[in-house]
């Protein structure tokens, strides 16, 4: 049985955990002090040695990303933190920032030192008023204490409801004051990012993981996790489970283990399908309960670790309804820049709506897959690929359920049975 390993979440149960006082009481801002006394390249090497990989979905090695920033180029460098957490099912960065905004600020100070940047921007999604308050106050308090403003400035930038801004180049366009649409790469942000200057874009959890690595060393971090997926990370369990929540554990833990901790699937029901890392990662079923949840394990089983957003659905859930809803989301959030995604997601929704209503034919399933084939790998950014994941994976595992809608001329499921308040008289 894998043991939980709270590092990021270690002090979240202290009532004032979000304050500077609480953060410093628990050793906060000692890591930045230590890092600032080190050579920037030594800090980069330390993060490389730790094996930390990006926690925003792609899993790119964080230290390597930092190492791509050209040095001695006499240009301004920027750190941009992606706090636009919007991938359906993903709910780790927002509670982290609500409970402990200072760990992100300390991570920013260390990262800025490493990449020789004076400016960090935190791009947070706009639909979280109280978390904006907490982060803003933490930044203000850090300035007042002289922690910020002595070489590093942190600016909080609040988004306004566009999922695509979680894509790093769309985020940069948005931060520059444009519509958030992705940019062609190359040039990569490390060469020409914010204001066409060398820029590192990292997820909240990645940057927040850095202070503990600096304090405890690369070996300590390496001692957790699996061969190529090191460290501890936040797994977010939601859906038809007895106790949903955040579980910080070493990479490589399995859903079976996490479900056991959570009291299992809700009473009287069984697991039907789940996402390992948000809606953009291909669905898994009860056949995947023992897949090690690390970057390699999940990929080998045909999906992606993504944001470690474990959304659990039991047998009362109609997979066609679930997939239609995700597809409507992608259609709504498509930025419109490229044709395969803009037009493709629109057509996907039309066909899925018919299928859910039992109005389609079996040929529509082939058409869906054909459309997905023309979106996957042919869109401007990874958004299009993500939009196809729930469709292709659900047809792979639940083709019969799509057919059942056609035979029955409608959805065979009762949506009330899937709600949490079924039987509660609501």
């Amino acid at each position, binding site marked *: 049985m894998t043991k*939980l390993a*709270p590092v990021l*979440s270690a002090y*979240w*149960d202290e*009532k004032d*955990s979000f*304050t500077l006082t609480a953060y410093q009481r628990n050793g906060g801002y000692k890591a930045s002090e230590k890092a600032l006394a080190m050579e920037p390249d030594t800090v980069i090497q330390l993060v490389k040695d730790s094996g930390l990989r990006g926690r925003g979905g792609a899993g790119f090695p964080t230290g390597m990303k930092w190492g791509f920033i050209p040095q001695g180029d006499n240009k*301004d460098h920027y750190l941009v933190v992606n706090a636009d957490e919007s991938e*359906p*099912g*993903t*709910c780790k*960065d*927002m*509670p982290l920032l*609500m*409970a402990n905004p200072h760990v992100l600020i300390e991570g920013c100070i260390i990262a800025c030192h490493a990449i020789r940047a004076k*400016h960090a921007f935190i791009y947070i999604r706009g*639909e979280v*008023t*109280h978390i*904006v*308050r907490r982060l*803003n106050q*933490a930044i*203000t308090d850090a300035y007042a204490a002289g922690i910020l403003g002595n070489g590093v400035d942190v600016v909080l*930038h*609040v*988004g*306004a*409801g*566009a*999922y695509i801004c979680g894509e790093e180049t769309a985020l940069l366009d948005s931060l520059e*004051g444009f519509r958030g649409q992705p940019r062609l790469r190359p040039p990569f942000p490390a060469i020409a990012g914010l*204001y066409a200057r060398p820029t590192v874009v990292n997820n909240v959890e990645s940057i927040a993981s850095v202070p503990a690595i600096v304090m405890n060393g690369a070996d300590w971090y390496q001692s957790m996790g699996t061969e190529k997926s090191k460290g501890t990370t936040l797994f977010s*369990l*939601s*859906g038809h489970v007895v*106790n*949903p*929540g*955040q*579980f*910080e*554990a070493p990479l490589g833990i399995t859903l079976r283990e996490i479900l056991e901790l959570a009291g299992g699937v809700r009473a009287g029901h069984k697991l039907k399908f789940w996402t390992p890392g948000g*809606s953009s990662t291909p669905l898994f079923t009860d056949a995947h309960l023992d897949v090690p949840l690390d970057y390699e394990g999940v990929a080998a089983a045909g999906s992606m670790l993504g944001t470690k957003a474990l*959304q659990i*659905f039991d047998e009362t859930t109609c997979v066609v309804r*679930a997939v239609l*809803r995700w597809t409507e989301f992608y259609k*709504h*959030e498509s930025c419109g820049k490229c044709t395969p995604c803009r037009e493709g997601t629109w057509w996907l929704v039309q066909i899925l709506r018919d299928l859910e209503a039992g109005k389609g034919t079996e040929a529509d399933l082939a058409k869906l897959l054909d459309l997905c084939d023309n979106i996957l790998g042919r869109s401007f950014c990874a958004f299009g690929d993500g939009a196809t994941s729930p469709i292709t994976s659900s047809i792979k595992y639940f083709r019969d359920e799509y057919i059942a809608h056609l035979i029955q001329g409608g959805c065979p499921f009762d*949506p*009330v049975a*899937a*709600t*949490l*308040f079924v039987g509660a008289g*609501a």
Partner: protein
Amino acid sequence: MAFSTEDLQIMDSIIKRYPRPRSAIMPLLHFVQSKEGYVTNEGIELIAEILELAAAEVTAVSTFYTQYKSAPVGEYHVGVCTNTLCAVMGGDAIFASLKEHLEIENDGVTTDGKVSLEHIECNAACDYAPVVMANWEFYDNQTVESAKELVDSMRAGKPKPPTRGPNRLVSWKEASAVLAGLNDGLAHEGVQAGEPTLLGLKLSKAGK
């Protein structure tokens, strides 16, 4: 309404946060909403003027993002998550019942101007599903009944406080000011975390 000298000073301070002025468009649009309730033509033109842009350039940005409203919303803007997970767990039922209860459709506003309703996408609180937001504050673990009680409390002028948020629900305009980066002094209020957030930590302390 006209923007005051003080408003212009605030807008200037927002611009000064950034190395390049254009980056301030988004907080400036949030600020306009904090004053006018939505993005008015006057607000667009003012932003264009102070950033030395064409009004069309500011409009292009404003219309891209769903949080910028082109028409007034209620004093309390309610969003019901109907992305897959929340929808399945009860979000669809909550949204349908609120439309019926308030006698408005998606994006509608009650005749008293108190409540507006919108179905929203995933709001990063899935372990608290079904989730309802009001002025982008969290109302966790909602049911059809609790959501109706919530909007009723808004219409009565005494909105229930958020589950994870300040001790009182601020108005749409006040919340917009927070999103523009202005400090309303309420950051210390409310819990640091809800139970699901702390579950793994609690189990770990119990030896798991």
